[in-house]
């Protein structure tokens, strides 16, 4: 069955709200407006204003309230419109949600799910184009997920809600209109494994969220040159699934990480370090990465495209690893 990423998220949220009275959705414009990305369209009318709770522009306040409500026995899904605004709520996410279990000696868990859109690609300029997945993936106590497929958009919310600990969900803004085939296995989604999305024997492309599809496009082009690129969709950014990454890299002996975050201190850097630690002697070439250029995101279309990882830059990085030139 063909379905959009947006519709898959909508169905997942609908299931959660319909099945568990403790679940409620809270955030900016989730109710009357129908969700800034139209994910919760119609929910306000169906579930009412208590459970589809419009919040004022108080990211720190309502994210903290979601954390408190989770401590108080509810299962809140807090929607922060975008990762850009989540910086205003960072204190509550890091200093409260992530730490409470540990600081209390295991007495209090915080079963909150915090969703946000992320990423660039729509000419929204510097303040609305961030990718800060790595900031959250840095923090012990958080689980960080990045559904990139319709299966995961449909399937990852349920285990996120079942988790007794805070889960941060990143939805790449370019993916909402993407259409895909919903597999019969969508309900088996977990919060711990990466997935090989396309097999290949010559190089491993490691990506997450929006860059998964750029890596897939690059793999397609490489295939036409006789190069087999394996594509790993990380799915879960904390904890990272080292086993899947290393098994692939040991087979292909080469890896390129595709990450929309800025290069310095990026998730790509972390993954490179882990490959170095765990699979150094299996490598035939230094691990490479394609990240965003270290400039604030420009508005002009051609400059934004140049700043972001693109299939062409991934292809170029692979060819360089293999000592080949572009055809």
């Amino acid at each position: 069955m063909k379905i959009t990423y947006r519709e898959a998220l909508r169905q997942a949220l609908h299931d959660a709200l319909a099945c568990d009275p403790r679940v409620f959705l809270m955030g900016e414009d989730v109710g009357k407006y129908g969700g800034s990305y139209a994910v919760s369209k119609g929910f306000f009318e169906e579930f009412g204003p208590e459970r589809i709770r419009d919040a004022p522009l108080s990211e720190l306040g309502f994210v903290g309230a979601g954390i408190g409500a989770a401590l108080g026995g509810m299962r809140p899904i807090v929607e922060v419109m975008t990762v850009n605004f989540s910086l205003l709520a960072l204190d509550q996410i890091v200093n409260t949600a992530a730490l409470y279990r540990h600081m209390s000696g295991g007495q209090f868990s915080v079963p909150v799910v915090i969703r946000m859109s992320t990423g660039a690609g729509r000419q929204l300029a510097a303040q609305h184009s961030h990718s800060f997945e790595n900031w959250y993936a840095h923090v012990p106590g958080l689980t960080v997920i990045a559904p990139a497929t319709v299966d995961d958009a449909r399937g990852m919310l349920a285990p996120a809600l079942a988790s007794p600990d805070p889960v941060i969900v990143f939805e790449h803004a370019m993916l909402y209109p993407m259409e895909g085939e919903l597999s019969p296995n969508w309900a088996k989604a977990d919060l711990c494994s990466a997935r090989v999305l396309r097999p290949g024997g010559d190089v491993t492309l490691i990506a997450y969220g929006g860059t998964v599809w750029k890596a897939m496009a690059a793999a397609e082009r490489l295939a036409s040159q006789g190069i087999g690129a394996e594509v790993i969709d990380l799915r879960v950014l904390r904890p990272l699934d080292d086993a899947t990454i290393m098994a692939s890299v040991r087979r292909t002996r080469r890896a390129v990480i595709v990450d929309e975050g800025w290069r310095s201190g990026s998730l790509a850097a972390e993954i490179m370090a882990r490959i170095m630690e765990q699979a150094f002697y299996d490598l035939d070439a230094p691990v490479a990465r394609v990240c965003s250029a270290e400039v604030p995101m420009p508005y002009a279309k051609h400059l934004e495209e140049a700043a972001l990882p693109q299939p062409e830059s991934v292809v170029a990085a692979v060819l360089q690893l293999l000592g080949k030139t572009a055809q």
Partner: protein
Amino acid sequence: MTSHETAAPKPVPIETGLALAMLRDMVRIRRFEERCADLYGQQKIRGFLHLYIGEEAVGVGAVHALATDDSIVATYREHGHALARGIAAGAIMAEMYGKLEGCSRGRGGSMHLFDAKARLYGGNAIVGGGLPLATGLALAEKMQGGRRATAVFFGEGAVAEGAFHESMNLAALWKLPVVFFCENNLYAMGTALARSESQTDLCAKAASYDVTTARADGMDVVACYEAARDAVNRVRDGAGPVFVEFQTYRYRAHSMFDPDLYRDKAEIEAWKKNGPIHNLTNRLKSEGKLTEQTFLAIDAEAQREVDLAVAFAEEGTWESVDDLARDVHTQAAP
């Protein structure tokens, strides 16, 4: 009214048993924290240690106004609230020692006292950090149709934080059963209120969000109790949040690292003349409800409790380093 009548101790218009229980808690907190300061000097307690000495009436009066199943969110200056709530002095002292028998298994220390059974949700050491959390606890309670209140304590310094303003708005907008207990001790660490706020009337700030406000003498435990009781009753009846400003004073420095150079010694001495323990003791004695002998017995009992707490902490165990990674995630098995 003659000057003689003005000088007479104010009456104690509450049941004597309650007044004595509150006196006992204030003395327990005072003795406990005096010992904490000694133990800090002996390096038994480390990290930050923020003493509540001088402010005991606020926590004691407010906690006595709460039902045992109401929720409490406190700050890093929360030994008094934890003791008044009934958490064992030994578990609190063991926590400050960093021992496994501590109320947070030694992972929190002085600033992060927790107790799930007592519904004490910390011990939050980010100024203002507890307010959104308390707002959310109250939201959950309201959505689940319960009648429990949530009380959150914070200093006047927190009023400068966005978290205060956002929480006031959310709590009032959604008519949540939360009481905001502001412990105004006049100094945010070393910065006086008037040097950091354009509007120093804290109730006016809360009232601007359509939150009901009250003000109480934070050196008078009876006044603190009555103000808190009225506030809690109001939120329990679904009338929306209440903000209470307790005007109090800390006798000691902000923390053990603070040289206390920003305030006049005469100011400290003036506040000490109106100390909360002295205040209530005098009034009870003048009404014939307390003898010196009984007071000395209360004090001796408190000191005995502290001795036992210290012994408990001394005998406590250090958690195995093998368990370092536990309690980061719920399922994480080391």
